[in-house]
């Protein structure tokens, strides 16, 4: 058992898989020599060498195209898109090529690749370096989408992503890189498509992702002191989505909240609320509520950014208000 940061866990997960399978290669801007701008790939060049850990030009389409072509012909690449905001410069390769290739070819092609990316806000980086864009990916058939919230999950989900024969978008929350946590020794492999109940509770189901998981747990502790006992689900994997765990929880609590970092419209919470409104409508005791960033880009000043991302206080207030209506 070791204490690792979330950032170190990324490198550990990749190293675990690169040791196991020499078809696994890593490619991206400054991922090799510099060990990544977020230091999530530190040490990999030293261990696996320049053939398997590759620094590229600033050319996200070329990077993901290379990963895709390699995945189609026998490798299992991991590509880094430094900030998830930059998916927009290579979105064609992701959504029109990588996601659709297997389907269009009627299964002739498999696409075992992982795209890892620093995601999310709270670091005062402004509107072009702070977005949480899991919902962009969730809307595209053919992509698997995960966001771990703890160091252990980083390792386990990275391993699962690398072993998946389908393309996985692996979102690392930049605001969690410094987070420390216990990580068991030895090989760790989780299963894709499992949500985790981080805190059981009876009064409401609160589904959160990434940075919002910790805030929601903190909010749950505060609410507990008021006698409101909420169940906190870390959804972790948006595709595949563990609807059993989520719907099961709602059937027990009768109340649904989502806590999302992304702007409001068509955040991933909209899918979860819609599923609930379709499939467990009769279980619901009260309106569902999505706690989100308003539908705006993120401002850069710390005071402004803090005022719009869901905070522990806001989560407490909204749940309290919701449960008491």
């Amino acid at each position, binding site marked *: 058992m070791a204490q690792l940061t979330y950032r170190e866990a990324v490198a550990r997960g990749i190293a675990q898989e690169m040791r196991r399978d020499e078809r696994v290669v890593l490619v991206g801007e400054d991922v090799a020599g510099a060990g990544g701008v977020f230091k999530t790939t530190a040490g990999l060049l030293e261990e696996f060498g320049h053939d398997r850990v590759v620094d590229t030009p600033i*050319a996200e389409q070329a990077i993901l195209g*290379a990963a895709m072509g390699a995945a189609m012909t026998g490798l299992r690449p991991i590509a880094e898109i430094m900030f998830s905001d930059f998916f927009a410069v290579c979105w*064609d390769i992701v959504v029109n090529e990588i996601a659709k290739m*297997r389907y269009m*070819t009627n299964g002739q092609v498999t696409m075992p690749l992982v795209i890892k990316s620093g995601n999310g806000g709270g670091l005062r980086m402004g509107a072009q370096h702070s977005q949480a864009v899991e919902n962009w990916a969730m809307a595209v058939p053919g992509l698997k989408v995960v966001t771990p919230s703890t160091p252990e999950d980083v390792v386990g989900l990275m391993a699962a992503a690398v072993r998946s024969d389908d393309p996985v978008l692996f979102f690392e929350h930049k605001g969690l890189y410094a987070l420390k946590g216990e990580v068991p020794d030895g090989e760790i492999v989780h299963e894709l498509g499992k949500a985790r109940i981080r805190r059981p509770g009876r009064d409401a189901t609160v589904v959160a992702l990434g940075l919002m998981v910790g805030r929601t747990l903190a909010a749950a502790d505060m609410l507990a002191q008021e006698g409101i006992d909420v169940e906190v689900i870390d959804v972790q994997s948006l595709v595949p989505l563990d609807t059993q765990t989520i719907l099961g929880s709602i059937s027990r609590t009768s109340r649904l909240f989502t806590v999302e970092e992304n702007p409001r419209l068509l955040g991933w919470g909209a899918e979860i609320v819609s599923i609930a409104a379709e499939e467990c409508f009769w279980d619901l005791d009260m309106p569902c509520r999505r706690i989100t960033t308003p539908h705006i880009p993120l401002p850069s000043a710390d005071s402004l950014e803090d005022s719009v991302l869901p905070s522990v206080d806001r989560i407490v207030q909204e749940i309290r208000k919701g449960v008491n209506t």
Partner: protein
Amino acid sequence: MSNPLARHRYGEHAAVLPPAVDTTVTTVPGGDVPDEIRLALYRRLEELRQFEKRAYDLFMQQLVKGTSHLSLGMEAISAGFGAAMRADDYTLATYRGHAHTLSRGVPMTPVLAELLGRGNGLMAGKGGSMHLTSIEHGVLGCYAIIGAHLCVANGAAWSAKIRKSGQVTVCFFGDGTTNIGAFHEALNYAAVFSLPVVFVCENNGYMEYTPIGDITAVPRPAADRAAAYGLEPICVDGNDVDVMYQTARAALQHAREGGGPVLVEAITYRHGGHSRADPGKYRSSAEVAAWMDYDPLTIYRRRLLQLGIPDDELDRIRDAVRANVDLATEEAKAGPLPDLSSAMTDLWADGGSEWRN
């Protein structure tokens, strides 16, 4: 080549002339091609030509739905490459990819059936005319959004390099494609990593309905950019299949031996419109006529006759191809409609499309 950036009224641009007339095209000597290869090249040209004509007829009969882009007039490029490639080399092409797919030995029936949306189609009707793929034959796909596949080609080449397999990746694209960002990213990337990939620009003078010279800053859209990636400018006669075969051999050898990427510009012309919706009226009839005279099949047949190959041997090949095309047409038409449940298969590697538990 028409003068780039010359301002003119729509449809009144300078004519795009065949290589024989255009002195900026380097004509690689086409000699030294063994007879049996020449006959194979001739057969391939006939196949591509007759297949595309049949595809056109089937559109007209409303049997091919959606859109489709033919290579009529441009067959020598893919034929030349196809003959020069190793069986395990990779091809990537565009929405205009029937010829490139057939040139790797993919049989006609599944290709035609795919165009007709049948269950015996190459992708069982899930891809369509613009996305022909046959991994078994090294055809890693046809790509319908401009630019992406040049980047994907690098990936196949990278993997071949890591696997030390000696495979070369050949990536076909059009003149219009040289102006999109992905072209630039792919070429620089390939050069930086010295990847075994051959980029083949089929310069047919037009980006859909716009003369390439009107929207490109240099006269030769690919060759004049080669230096930007540290590559040699290569511009050849894309209607001469011997030239294309020799060009392909040299390029493949260079890439296979570790010399890094090659960028080839092949000058050609499409006989018809861009896609089936397009009558191609933006081209002067003199221009079209000049190119019809410089048709790859006509000039090749003439050459073979000059080289002493008997007329009736060529006729026999042509007729054999016709029989094949007829048979493929029958088989494709007779194909069943796809099983509707197949719409829900093979999104994921597990064979299904489930996104939840």
